[in-house]
């Protein structure tokens, strides 16, 4: 999901629970998922990545697992959502309109939404929720960093003015996904606070799973299912096995090996979301030997992307072209594919004075499936240009505090997030999370210029140029993108398309499709 950051922390959990992955594939005559007793047929059961031990109730802090995102998206309304095509769609917010300076935005919210305690949802509730996100910046990766929330103010019950720190044309996008609206003044989040979303939590459930019941007063399209049961299951293998044994109806994020085994099984359907995940190879540009542009380019030319894709993701995905956000709506589409060219790579190494090769440590972890094998294979491929990269496997639960942003050469993780989110978190000079030490002042000036451009087409082209420059000059090698693979029982419909936050909004799932 777009909450790469969340998933990454979910990795903490995945990593531990990890591996457990007990299981084989289902017997060849795979029992059609038996399903619950007929009476329960109005319940859709979803096994989502996440950990039952980390199930949070505060929608504005860290959402450690995708299951947490899904639960929040059922309970609360958000201001805007990403559409399947990457454009921003209205949700609770019906309109967002800037003034001429692109710094003052009038956000209009629906007048027909009500919280579960009967109170109407007002603009004041929305602004309160954004401010709360601002206060919890440390736990949500500064998602509200572009806004001056103190200067923002409520206009009336259905509108508020949102002030940005600099001209910022992408406010609709900045409000996508995680802007869960709670009643103004809520302060005890030990239990869920009232929400206005399409579903409401019921008392049924506990550590194993939570059951949500349809909110028949919801303003949006009526959800077809009466109940949705959300279960956090850390291990990908276990999620898939739960589906194959008929214990759930939808399994999010299943391993490619298992998906491969199920091809041809008519009892289940494989859902593929292209480009959901990438494990970029990070080369820190302020550290030898990667401070030399030729070495970074040589590494990018030494990678056998096809072999990596086939081995690490079993072919479920596409080869990367070193673009860090290839599925972003503004990503350049017409660049030539970078391919393996050992001859040129060796020459670049020689030009950089490294004809005799160089010894490096490549850090990786088991937080996400295949990260370890990817590093192993990359190390073997880089041997072709004299880079002797020793693979160092780090514990998953400290990887993102000890390795991420600190070591010069490692595998990172990005979960299909938009370009501007990557910029905010990983490409800001001086930030501890600027993992490639990217700091070209001209590039950042170009970014400000792009964000101050009101015309959508022109802005998009400016952003595309920035991404192209980052691809050629920066410290990332993006060798492949993997599909997000979900398994659903045959007949299940309404699973959202699209990656990132889009995938969390499952209110339209139905067993009768």
């Amino acid at each position: 999901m777009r909450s790469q950051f969340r998933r990454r922390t979910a990795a903490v959990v995945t990593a531990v629970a990890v591996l457990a992955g007990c299981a084989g594939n289902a017997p060849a005559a795979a029992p059609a998922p038996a399903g619950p007793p007929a009476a329960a047929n109005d319940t859709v059961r979803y096994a989502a990545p996440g950990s039952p031990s980390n199930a949070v109730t505060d929608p504005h802090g860290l959402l450690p697992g995708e299951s947490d995102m899904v639960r929040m998206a059922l309970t609360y309304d958000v201001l805007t959502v990403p559409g399947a095509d990457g454009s921003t769609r209205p949700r609770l917010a019906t309109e967002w309109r800037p003034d001429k300076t692109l710094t003052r935005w009038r956000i209009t919210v629906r007048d027909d939404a009500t919280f579960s305690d009967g109170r109407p949802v007002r603009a004041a509730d929305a602004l309160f929720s954004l401010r709360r996100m601002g206060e919890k910046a440390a736990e949500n990766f500064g998602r509200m960093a572009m806004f001056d929330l103190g200067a923002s103010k409520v206009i009336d019950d259905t509108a508020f003015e949102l002030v940005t720190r600099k001209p910022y044309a992408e406010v609709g996008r900045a409000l996508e996904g995680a802007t869960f609206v709670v009643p103004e003044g809520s302060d005890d989040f030990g239990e869920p606070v009232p929400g206005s979303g399409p579903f409401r939590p019921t008392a049924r459930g506990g550590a194993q799973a939570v059951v949500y019941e349809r909110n028949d007063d919801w303003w949006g399209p009526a959800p077809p299912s009466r109940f949705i049961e959300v279960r956090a299951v850390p291990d990908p293998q276990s999620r898939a096995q739960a589906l194959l044994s008929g214990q759930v109806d939808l399994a999010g994020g299943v391993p490619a090996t298992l998906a491969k085994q199920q091809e041809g099984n008519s009892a289940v359907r494989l859902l593929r979301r292209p480009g959901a995940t990438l494990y970029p190879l990070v080369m820190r540009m302020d550290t030898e030997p990667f401070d030399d542009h030729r070495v970074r380019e040589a590494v990018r030319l030494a990678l056998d992307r096809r072999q990596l894709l086939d081995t690490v993701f079993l072919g479920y995905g596409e080869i990367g072209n070193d673009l860090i956000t290839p599925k972003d709506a503004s990503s350049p589409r017409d660049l030539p594919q970078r391919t393996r060219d050992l001859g040129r790579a060796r020459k670049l190494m020689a030009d950089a004075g490294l004809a005799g090769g160089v010894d490096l440590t490549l850090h990786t972890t088991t937080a996400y499936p295949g990260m370890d094998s990817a590093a192993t294979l990359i190390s073997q491929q880089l041997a072709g240009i004299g880079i002797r990269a020793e693979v160092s496997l780090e514990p998953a639960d400290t990887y993102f505090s000890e390795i991420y942003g600190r070591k010069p050469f490692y595998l990172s993780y990005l979960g299909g997030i938009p370009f501007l989110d990557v910029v905010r978190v990983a490409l800001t000079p001086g930030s501890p999370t600027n993992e490639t030490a990217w700091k070209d002042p001209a590039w950042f000036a170009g970014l400000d210029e792009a964000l101050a451009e009101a015309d959508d087409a022109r802005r998009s082209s400016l952003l595309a140029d920035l991404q192209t420059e980052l691809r050629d000059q920066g410290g990332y090698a993006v060798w492949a993108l993997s599909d997000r693979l979900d398994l659903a029982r045959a007949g299940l419909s309404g699973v959202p398309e699209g990656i990132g936050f889009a995938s969390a909004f499952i209110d339209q799932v139905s067993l009768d499709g």
Partner: protein
Amino acid sequence: MRRRTAGALAAWAGAAVLVALGGRALTGHDPAAVGATPWAGPEPGLPLGADGLGRDVLSRVLAGGQDLTLTALAAALTASALGVAGGLWAGWNRGRLSRAAAATADLLLALPLLLLALLAVVALPGPAAVIAGTVLGGTPLTLRVVADATAGARHAGYVEAALARGERGASVLMREVLPAHAGIIGADLAQRFVLSVQLAVALNVLGFGPAPPAPDWAAMLRENLPGLGLNPAATIVPALALAVLTGSFAALSHALTSRDGAP
């Protein structure tokens, strides 16, 4: 008869260790090399098929016992040595200090072993954590066994005789008591070995394995379970290897202790 069984089992367990330690030398391929289709079944030149990365399972099985066995041996010897020393001392002097030692042992037994091991594995590198866990979980058991045996021997005829000859306590312990209980101690050592292998495997299941691409039986168990339906050998053979390794030491331990007692 028993002695012969124990001898045979000792030879067998020793052989298991030697194979585990030396298997790497027998591998035809680099166990980390990617050479086959992922999850390929057994075929000529690939007797046990391939794993999920397309690596030769046979090579990985042959090479995969070395680190695990070395770690477990080190852990067992450390835990046992500490336990024997502590047990001799505590059993011989049943004073206040030895009670403190026993109380410590009780305390360690009351803490869930897995918790101790997990805390250890977060703070220490993998093998060190296995050693620490085995010491924390196993030494108290050894200490109790040896202390009871020593306390029992304190007033045995051969000890009294040695003391009457004017020998010092420490030398009586080393020359008389220790050899008299060699069977128990050997059996206990074998048990500690089994414990440390179990601990290493458990830690691995919980996600704290050796670094890839290093082959390791426990890691293979975890890595290859997803392919159980595609190439069962990739999971079952390392499982068997672990079962043989632990089983032979357990049987040895049994043979050593049942010389006195069982039918």
